[in-house]
């Protein structure tokens, strides 16, 4: 029995050069039909919305660093802020879910963090700050990558917690470590969850408000710390990402992407010269 024919030029196959696969003859009518139709593309608005959702997650990750910088460089007292944020999170959870919040689970997390925060603080104290920044940077990169690849995986959560634990050693006191942990979990795990549920329930306006608030906080902070120059750079990159990149995506989809299954299988590979 000979091997089935493959549509690959670089393979040495036991078929004559002018061999025509019977499948092709069967499907050639449908292929012509597909060729006559114009290439379907996604709508620009939908692509922009998808890109901005991803941008929003990255922004949330950035808020971790905002919190860290506030605690580490500006010696901000985090207690009142944490209490406020936590109560707010509870309120939102109660209001939007209309269910009893899982008290046990939250208590376990809070107490574990209380117990472990001194350990976490001393864990990498002897490691130099440079190493910590590098490790944290890589972990953040992996975190973004894991969000990009599969959003509902628990790997991203784990990488986030590891990142926070690494950063925690640079903080001053145990209270700071505890508050930082709590803030990070609320911002990066609970906030995206709430936002997604907002979208799912079509509370679009509320979602838009949160999105704007996030942006506002992040850019205000960047402006305060680094100056308007950086705000301009970050803002321009964000706008490029959200508004320009979708255009390019649609261009790519129109010219190169073959969504039709017959086109996928039988299209003539034209070299693109421009």
């Amino acid at each position: 029995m000979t091997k089935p024919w493959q549509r690959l030029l670089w393979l040495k196959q036991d078929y004559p050069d002018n061999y025509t696969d019977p499948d092709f003859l069967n499907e050639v009518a449908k292929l012509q039909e597909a060729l006559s139709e114009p290439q379907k593309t996604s709508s620009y608005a939908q692509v922009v919305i998808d890109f901005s959702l991803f941008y929003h997650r990255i922004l949330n990750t950035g808020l971790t660093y905002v919190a860290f910088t506030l605690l580490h460089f500006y010696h901000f007292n985090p207690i009142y802020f944490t209490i406020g944020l936590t109560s707010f999170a509870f309120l939102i959870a109660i209001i939007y879910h209309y269910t009893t919040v899982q008290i046990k689970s939250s208590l376990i997390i809070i107490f574990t963090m209380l117990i472990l925060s001194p350990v976490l603080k001393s864990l990498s104290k002897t490691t130099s700050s440079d190493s910590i920044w590098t490790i944290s940077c890589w972990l953040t990169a992996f975190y973004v990558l894991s969000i990009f690849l599969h959003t509902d995986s628990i790997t991203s959560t784990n990488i986030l917690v590891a990142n926070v634990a690494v950063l925690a050693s640079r903080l001053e006191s145990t209270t700071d470590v505890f508050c930082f942990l709590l803030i990070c979990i609320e911002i990066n795990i609970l906030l995206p969850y709430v936002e997604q549920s907002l979208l799912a329930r079509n509370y679009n306006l509320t979602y838009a408000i949160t999105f704007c608030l996030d942006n506002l906080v992040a850019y205000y902070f960047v402006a305060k710390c680094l100056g308007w120059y950086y705000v301009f750079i970050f803002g321009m990159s964000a706008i490029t990402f959200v508004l320009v990149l979708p255009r390019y995506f649609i261009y790519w989809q129109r010219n190169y992407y073959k969504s039709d299954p017959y086109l996928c299988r039988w299209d003539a590979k034209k070299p693109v010269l421009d």
Partner: protein
Amino acid sequence: MKYIYWPKVAGFNKNDARIVVALQAPESDLIVISLLTARETKLLQKSNRFKRIGHIDGNNEFVSELDEKDICIVEFWPPKLNLMQFYALEPISLALPEKADSTLLSRATGGQPSPTEKFQMRESINSINLYYKHLQSLRALIGRAGPSNRGIPVRRIARALADLCGLLPLLSALRQALTYMIIFIHSFARFLSAVLNWNPLCLVSFSATAQQIDLRSQQFCYFPVQYLRITENAVFNRMRPRSELSVCHPKEKQETRGNASAGVFPCEYYPDYIRFYNTIWLIVNDVSFGLTVGTLLAENKLRIAKFINFHLTDYLFHKVHYITAYLGQNPLGIKLNGELAHFLSELFLWIIDFSYSTYIRRILDVSSIQTVISIVSRTSCCFGVTFALSLTVDLMSVLSMHISLFYYISAKMYHWQLHVMRSLLYLFWGKKRNLLRKRVDSNMFELDQLVMGTLFFTMMVFLLPTLAVFYISFTALRMTILMPELLLESLMALLNHFPLFVLLLRLKDPSRIPGGVSMEALGSKNRFALQNNPLTVSSMFRPYSLLMGMMAENYCSVATLKQILVGRPITIKRYKMYQVLYSALPKVPIATSKLWEALKGSRPS
């Protein structure tokens, strides 16, 4: 093809003896026994064992009178049984046969055909071994009484002398006393061995001295059995396994004695003889070495004590103390976790100080070392150098106990940490081990489980280098302590089990230690010479090569490296190691009551 075995001693000494007579044993080839004259051959008509197969013609050539034309002559030197020479198809075993079958040794020797397998060559070799006996019976048949008993047995002379002097009662009393003494020594040795091997404590696996005592007592238990076996073949040759001396029923005994003349081969028990005298030689050697070493030790007591005091205090206390303290302070610039490193370092420093002040300082005191050396030298003089070595090994392991303790503690911690980290790593990727199906499955964890697990995992990752540094340094320390111990133990093994007697036999008379036969083609057609291949030196030292292989496997192999990386503790498996060397001793010593019966039974009637 017909094989005819031709003894080289059957010469053409008599001009008229030209008729070739051969032995026709069942399932064996023809074995030429002698050349006879025509008159003598006539006397053999009745016998069916001996058969005329041909004659010698005028040119001193053998002319066959057999039906088969295709014949092949194999010349051989008949083995002298009284000199304990014999041929064997397989190399004789220096280990006990039942031990040789055990997994380790048989794996090394490879697939040997089992000795019970029958074929013509084996039967022929058996007949060749009994050549002189057959010659005697042939001569008896033809009435040419040969010099059957060249020497008068020593025992007969002794008895005659005793009779002469009226010393018989005294002799028997002496014999009685000897029997009681043997029984006493045997039961004592057996008790000692049993105590040392007593299961829940199993001293043998801990201490080299216990092992040495156990070896000696087992040897003492086995001596009477071995002696009876080599002197009184007829009684014991039916006994299998060799560790048991079942007392024969009188009828069976008779039968055995009857068969002994022709059916049972005395050479079967020559390996026992070799083993017995090898052990005795080794013990004597051991004691004589011991005298030398003991005297040397006793003479240079003070100098040795000072040397040991200085160096051991340095290595076992100061150096270890320094290393442990150093590990607590970011060694080699590696940033360890400060708190944990400090804690571990403090813990180990405390153990070092404690053990030093409680016993190491007292033992390593110059005067107490002198006492120890004098004890060791006396032991060496009385019991042999192996006892001195084993005492040294034990003393070393006692003195390095704190290092072993560190090693075990750090290995345990490291192992636990790795184990926990593996489980948490599964959690990190959202997986979980399924115990029922023995595989790793995906699992959705709750948020609290996730956060807790990840926090712990991160902690473990950061603590791992600290524990690993402690673990690696103590493993290295432990290995350096183990090396001299292993060296001494190998030396002990060599002294205890060196195949000295066999080596000497190899020089003196290689045909006493047959390792198989070979046929060499002689010049003319269809003529071969049967030759004895003595045991090779490598096969004599096989237990050692096995032991060395095991040591290499235990201490420097990839598997061991893996074990070290995983954090499994590495221990001396002394018992397992010496199993190879115990190959010349039965597994269980013979019961005293059986020995008593055997000794009584062996009395001359």
